[in-house]
C-alpha cells in the first residue's frame, strides 16, 4: 500500500472556506429551527390534530420535532452537498479535472481528501443544529419525548445525510455538467423524503408496524422510537459513515475515466 501523502491531504483541507460556509448555513438553519419551535405550538388546534393524524405521531413535542428534524437534515445535507459537487463535478465541468488527476496521488486519496471535509462540515453543522433544536424545544419535553431522544433523532438524520453525501459523490463522479450534478443532489435528498410524503396521502400502502414502517416513514419513526434512538444513534452514525465510505470507494473507481 502506498503511504498517504499528508501534505497533499492538508492542502486539500484548507481549500474550501469551510468555517464560513458552516457558520452561515448553520446560522440560517438555527434561525429556521427556533422559528419553527416558536410557530408550531401556536398553530390552531385543528391543524395540529391534522398533522398528528397525517404523520401518525402524538403530542406537541413530537409535532415540533418532526418539523425541526427536517430543517436539521436539509441544511446539514445541502451544505455538505455543495462541497461534494465542488470537489469533483465542478472541476470536471470546467475542464480542469484532468489537471488535478495527473498529480501523483492515488484516486482513493484524491476522493477521500476532497470529500471528507464535506462529511465533517455536514456533521458539524448537523450537531450544532441538533443542539439548537434541543434548546428551542426546552420546556416542551415530557415523558414521551426526552431531550436525549430529540438529540439522538437529530444526529440520526445527520447520519442519513452523510450516507446520502457518499451516494452523491459516487453518482456525480462522472457528471460533466454542474446543473446535472445539482439536480442529482436534489434528487438524492428527495429520494429519502418521498416515502414520508406518500405516507401522508396513502397510509394504506405502508405496513402498519415493523421494520418496513420504521425504515420508510423516516422522520416520524425516529420519534416513535426515540427512547431507542436516544442511545442507539452512535450505531446509526457508524452505519451512515460506513455507507458514505462505500460511496467514496465506488466514486474512487469511477473518477478516472478511460
Amino acid at each position: 500500500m502506498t503511504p498517504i501523502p499528508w501534505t497533499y491531504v492538508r492542502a486539500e483541507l484548507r481549500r474550501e472556506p469551510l468555517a464560513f460556509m458552516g457558520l452561515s448555513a448553520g446560522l440560517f438553519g438555527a434561525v429556521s429551527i427556533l422559528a419553527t419551535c416558536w410557530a408550531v405550538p401556536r398553530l390552531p388546534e385543528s391543524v395540529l390534530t391534522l398533522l398528528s393524524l397525517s404523520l401518525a405521531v402524538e403530542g406537541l413535542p413530537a409535532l415540533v420535532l418532526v418539523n425541526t428534524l427536517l430543517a436539521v437534515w436539509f441544511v446539514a445535507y445541502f451544505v455538505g452537498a455543495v462541497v461534494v459537487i465542488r470537489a469533483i463535478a465542478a472541476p470536471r465541468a470546467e475542464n480542469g479535472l484532468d489537471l488535478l488527476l495527473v498529480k501523483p496521488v492515488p484516486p482513493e486519496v484524491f476522493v477521500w481528501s476532497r470529500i471528507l471535509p464535506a462529511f465533517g462540515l455536514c456533521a458539524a453543522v448537523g450537531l450544532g443544529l441538533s443542539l439548537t433544536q434541543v434548546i428551542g424545544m426546552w420546556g416542551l419535553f415530557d415523558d414521551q419525548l426526552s431531550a436525549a431522544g430529540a438529540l439522538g433523532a437529530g444526529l440520526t438524520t445527520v447520519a442519513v445525510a452523510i450516507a446520502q453525501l457518499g451516494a452523491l459523490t459516487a453518482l456525480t463522479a462522472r457528471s460533466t455538467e454542474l446543473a446535472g450534478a445539482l439536480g442529482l443532489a436534489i434528487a438524492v435528498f428527495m429520494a429519502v423524503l418521498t416515502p414520508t410524503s406518500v405516507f401522508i396521502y396513502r397510509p394504506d400502502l405502508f405496513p402498519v408496524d415493523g421494520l418496513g414502517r420504521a425504515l420508510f416513514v423516516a422522520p416520524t419513526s425516529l420519534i416513535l422510537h426515540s427512547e431507542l434512538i436516544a442511545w442507539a444513534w452512535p450505531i446509526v452514525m457508524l452505519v451512515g459513515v460506513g455507507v458514505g465510505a462505500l460511496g467514496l470507494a465506488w466514486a474512487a473507481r469511477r473518477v478516472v475515466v478511460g
Partner: protein
Amino acid sequence: MSPAASAVTAAVSNAVTNPALWWMELGRRLGERKSKGLAALYLGALLAAPKLLEKPPPHLLAAAQSWFGGDDPFALFMYVWTDLAMNKLAVVTGIALGAGVLVEERADRSLVLSLSKPITPAGLYALRTGSAVAVAAGLYLITQLAGLGLFAAQIDGFRPGAFWLSGMVHVWAPIFATTLSALCAVAIGRQLGAALVSVLVLFSLVGGAFLGVYNPAWAGALAFNPFTQAVAGVTHLGDQSFATLAPPVVGLLVLNLVLVAVGARLARRVEP
C-alpha cells in the same frame, strides 16, 4: 461619432431586441439536458398525482374542505397538486434553469466569447434569464394543459376552469424561482454558492406557502411570500375572481421585473 462607431452602438443596443437572437437562444435552451430532465419530472408529476389521491384519508378531505371550501376531493386535489407537486417542481426548475445564468458560461469559458460579440453583459443576462423564464413557464403551462385533459377523467368533481385559472396564477412561482436564482448567480458570482443560497431561500419560502391558511392570524404578516401569492388560485378556490386573483399576478409580475432589472445591473460585475 463616426458612422462605423454609431453602427456598432446601434448593434449593441439592438442585439437584445433582435427576434432571431431570441429564437436561437430558445432553441439552445430546449436542447440542454436539464430542460429535458425537467420535462421528465413534470411528466412524472402528471402520472403520480392521481395515484397519490386514490384513497385519501378522511381527515385530509375534511381539512381541505374547511380551508378552501368547494367540493371535497377536488379541493384536496388542488392542494396536493399545487403544494406537493408544482411548488416543489417550481423550486427545482428555478435552480436548474436560473442558477447557471452567466456563471455557467464563465465556467465553460464561453462567456468571454459571447461578450466579444456586440452584446452587453446586461443584455446577455436578460437573454439568458428570459429564455430560462420562457422554458420554465412553457413547461408549467404545457403540464397544466395536459393535466386538464388527464385529470378530468381521474378526479371526482374536477373543475377545469378553476384548475386552469389557478395554474395561470401559480405559473409565476417557477418564474419567480428562476429570476431569483439568476439574480443570486450574478450577485454571488460563484455558481454553487449561489445555488446553495437559492436552495435554502426558495425551499424555506415554499415551505411557508400555505402557512397563512393553517393559521389565519399570521396571513397578513406572511403575505410578502411570493409563493403565498402564487397559490392564490387555491386559497381562493371558493371565490376565484378578478378581484382575488389579479392583485397577486400584478404583484408577482412587478417583483419579477424588478429581480431581472437588478440582475441585469449586477451582470456588469461578472468578469468573463
